[in-house]
């Protein structure tokens, strides 16, 4: 009964989505106010029905209803409750339901936080999101219904993949999806702007915080995925250039370009059509990513071809969404104004160059991800494209981008002088070169690649210092703290996010350069020493988990002969699937991680044990967190909070003020509003 209710709610949601995707857009075009006014209530209604559908699916999982095919395939009565809930989005069908549920949540957010926007605009934005929703719900109902019954019902489910039975995996997909789906808001704003032809700085200001929030979710989602891979897969890697990872990284790269391009559109009115194109690309890649991961096309092109219904639907949907938005773009974009003038050397052109590098990187990653699939489906042979390819392509592209990252924030809008920039940055450059040359010695061994990586990181840090110093120097009188307090949050948010990149690079460089690994046979009582730590193996004993049996190793960690902690890695075998899993023990530290994983058992209670010393590895995820935090700070900037009161002033300012007050545009408008 409950699954049927869910199915029915899903059908009602589809009907509401169809209404949402048509009437408000038509109403906005013809000025029919009652149709425009429909947008908000319909969005909220759709949300309610999708929430019911999702609740029904979760209920089926929690109550072990193995007469539902999806539950029987992805759950088990022994599965702990939190993983039964998480299993609702563990499968292809469930994850798509989560996707469309989140889309409706984002739509509700837009409908609530858009009181200050013109009604026609809101109607168009919500209408576009409704059309996306129609596609997804149709896909669910036609090809991947999560509520399909199984006759006769199974007695027991075949269990959730043990890899997914982990707290990291419980929150990773929702975060990632919040990011993917969030780009649909940027996409909807872009399409609405193309339809209406109204695309000015105010438009960029509306769409910017939404894009930033989506980007923050995506950043955190990717970070969680990488962290999960690190502690769950059992050999301490954190990024594998796996197609699944690439699928989430692609929208991130384009989203990053979009965030920067929006900054220019908002502050200077330029790059309008480019920004719109990026918004379309970011969302298209989000769609592609969802389908790549969820359709099974990555595991095997042939498995995918045996179930053509899904494949044809997906391809058709992608072609319709991407094709129609690009057509609309080609038709309307030339009518969009060009914005302010700028020189070849200016902050605008540097941001544009950085955008280009990000897009080329995204294009190359996409090429590398799809190439084996294309070759295989054309019968040109099977190849693998792995880390060597991606690193060879990615690093050279990102190096100039990071160099520009240091220059950009210091360059003036409109027209910058290269000699002046060089003069201002020579100290930053000198300091970062010298530190990068010396630091590897501190770590024990000089390596060219480490030095190079550190140079990039220190360059970012040094230029941040120069930028803040110069900014303070130019911001009137007062003590250091008054001056610091005077800078806007969005200014700090930029530097914080850039600092995150630097921290990330330091982590990657140092862990790649100085990681040590030992694969040893540990007899009971034997030790292994690494990086100043001694690990003593005290044997392994059997333990039972809720749905698995495990051998748990007991390892003392000693430093200078003193025991500092006990590490207990496990080797698990899950009851239902019989899958073996390595559950490493990790001692996390600011400067290093100790990582111990159990290998295979040997005679006399001895085990093969893998011990790693990973310097600075946590800086990788800490860097990502800083980037995300930078994004959050940007969204809380004063100008977004003030906009409700100052809508009219602002539009006037946009009309005449922008061109005139050149360098301090942000400050000038802020000052007038206050």
């Amino acid at each position: 009964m409950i699954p049927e209710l869910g199915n029915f709610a899903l059908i009602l949601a589809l009907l509401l989505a169809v209404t949402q995707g048509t009437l408000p857009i038509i109403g906005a075009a013809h000025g029919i106010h009652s149709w425009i006014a429909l947008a908000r209530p319909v969005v909220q209604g759709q949300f309610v029905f999708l929430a019911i559908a999702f609740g029904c699916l979760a209920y089926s999982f929690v109550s072990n209803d193995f007469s539902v095919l999806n539950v029987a395939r992805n759950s088990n009565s022994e599965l702990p409750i939190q993983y039964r809930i998480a299993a609702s989005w563990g499968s292809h069908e469930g994850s798509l339901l989560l996707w469309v549920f989140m889309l409706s949540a984002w739509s509700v957010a837009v409908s609530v936080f858009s009181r200050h926007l013109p009604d026609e605009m809101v109607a168009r934005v919500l209408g576009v999101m409704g059309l996306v929703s129609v596609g997804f719900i149709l896909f669910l109902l036609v090809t991947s219904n999560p509520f399909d019954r199984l006759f006769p019902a199974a007695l027991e489910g075949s269990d959730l993949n043990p890899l997914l039975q982990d707290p990291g995996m419980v929150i990773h997909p929702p975060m990632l999806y919040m990011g993917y789906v969030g780009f649909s808001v940027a996409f909807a704003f872009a399409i609405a702007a193309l339809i209406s032809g109204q695309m000015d700085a105010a438009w960029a200001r509306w769409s910017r915080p939404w894009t930033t929030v989506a980007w923050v979710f995506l950043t955190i989602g990717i970070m969680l995925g990488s962290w999960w891979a690190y502690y769950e897969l059992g050999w301490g890697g954190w990024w594998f250039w796996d197609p699944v990872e690439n699928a989430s990284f692609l929208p991130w790269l384009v989203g990053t370009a979009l965030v920067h391009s929006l900054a220019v559109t908002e502050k200077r009115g330029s790059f309008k059509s480019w920004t719109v194109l990026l918004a379309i690309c970011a969302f298209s890649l989000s769609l592609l990513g969802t389908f790549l991961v969820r359709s099974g096309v990555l595991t095997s092109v042939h498995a995918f071809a045996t179930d053509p219904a899904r494949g044809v639907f997906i391809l058709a949907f992608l072609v319709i969404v991407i094709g129609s938005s690009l057509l609309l773009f080609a038709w309307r974009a030339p009518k969009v104004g060009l914005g302010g003038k700028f020189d070849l050397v200016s902050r605008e052109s540097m941001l544009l160059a950085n955008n280009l590098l990000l897009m080329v990187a995204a294009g190359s990653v996409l090429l590398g991800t799809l190439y084996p699939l294309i070759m295989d489906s054309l019968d040109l042979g099977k190849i693998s494209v792995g880390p060597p390819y991606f690193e060879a392509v990615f690093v050279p592209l990102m190096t100039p981008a990071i160099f520009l990252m240091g220059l950009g924030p210091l360059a003036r809008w409109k027209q910058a002088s290269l000699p002046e920039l060089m003069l201002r940055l020579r100290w930053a450059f000198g300091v970062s070169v010298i530190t990068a040359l010396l630091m590897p010695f501190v770590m024990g061994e000089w390596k060219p690649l480490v030095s190079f990586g550190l140079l990039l990181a220190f360059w970012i840090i040094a230029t941040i210092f120069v930028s803040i110093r110069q900014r303070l120097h130019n911001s009137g009188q007062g003590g250091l703290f008054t001056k610091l307090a005077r800078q806007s949050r969005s200014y700090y948010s930029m530097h914080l996010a850039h600092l995150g990149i630097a921290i990330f690079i330091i982590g990657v460089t140092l862990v790649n350069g100085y990681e040590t690994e030992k694969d040893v046979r540990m007899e009971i009582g034997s030790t292994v020493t690494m990086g100043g730590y001694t690990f003593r193996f005290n044997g392994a004993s059997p333990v039972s988990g809720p749905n698995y049996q495990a051998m748990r190793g007991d390892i003392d960690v000693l430093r200078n002969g003193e025991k500092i902690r006990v590490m207990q890695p496990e080797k698990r075998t899950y009851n239902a699937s019989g899958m073996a899993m390595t559950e490493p023990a990790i001692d996390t530290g600011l400067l290093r991680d100790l990582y111990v994983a159990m290998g295979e058992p040997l005679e006399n209670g001895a085990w093969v044990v893998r011990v790693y010393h990973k310097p600075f590895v946590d800086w990788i995820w800490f860097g990502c967190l800083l980037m995300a935090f930078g994004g959050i700070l940007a969204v809380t900037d004063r100008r977004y909070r003030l906009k409700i009161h100052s809508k009219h002033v602002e539009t006037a300012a946009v009309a005449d003020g922008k061109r005139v007050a050149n360098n301090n545009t942000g400050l000038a408008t802020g000052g007038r509003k206050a």
Partner: protein
Amino acid sequence: MNPVPSFEPLKNSFQQKIFSLRNIFSTKQFILLLALVLLSPLSWAEEALPVAEDPAIEKRMLALSEDLRCLVCQNESLAGSRADFANDLRREIREQLKANKSDQEIIDFLVSRYGDFVLYKPPVKPATYLLWGGPFVFLLTGAGILFFYLKRRRKQIEEPPLTEEQHRHAETLLKENKGNNA
């Protein structure tokens, strides 16, 4: 090739090992042994032996197998995977290294046996020209379009010079702004 994870054999050997462990020790013996271990002074502790017999060969083997694919796994390298297939292939590489074969010879051998699929770094050949050349094409095309677009754009926008009134307006704005900052 169907990527069926080879967990079955792994599981069986694992369970056998657990049972054999139980057979070897009675609980009493185990506790005795544990006590012995715990009470023993540190000087007793032996440095554990590395799994690899020859560290130099192991290092080369790892470097090689990092860029090779474990064919039965879902996108794992030979170095990372602990599937039986990967274990066997690592042993194979180790033996060939001991027999003084060069890295290239080993790679050639693996490719002749398993095809290009085993390489994470795809070979440069006509079918992969587009793959390896793609990024350069993207960059050059992008940079070219950007350059010409910016050039054309600068020509298109001939900013009208400010009128006297606009100048005064700008000045008041800037002054106001300074006043706010002070």
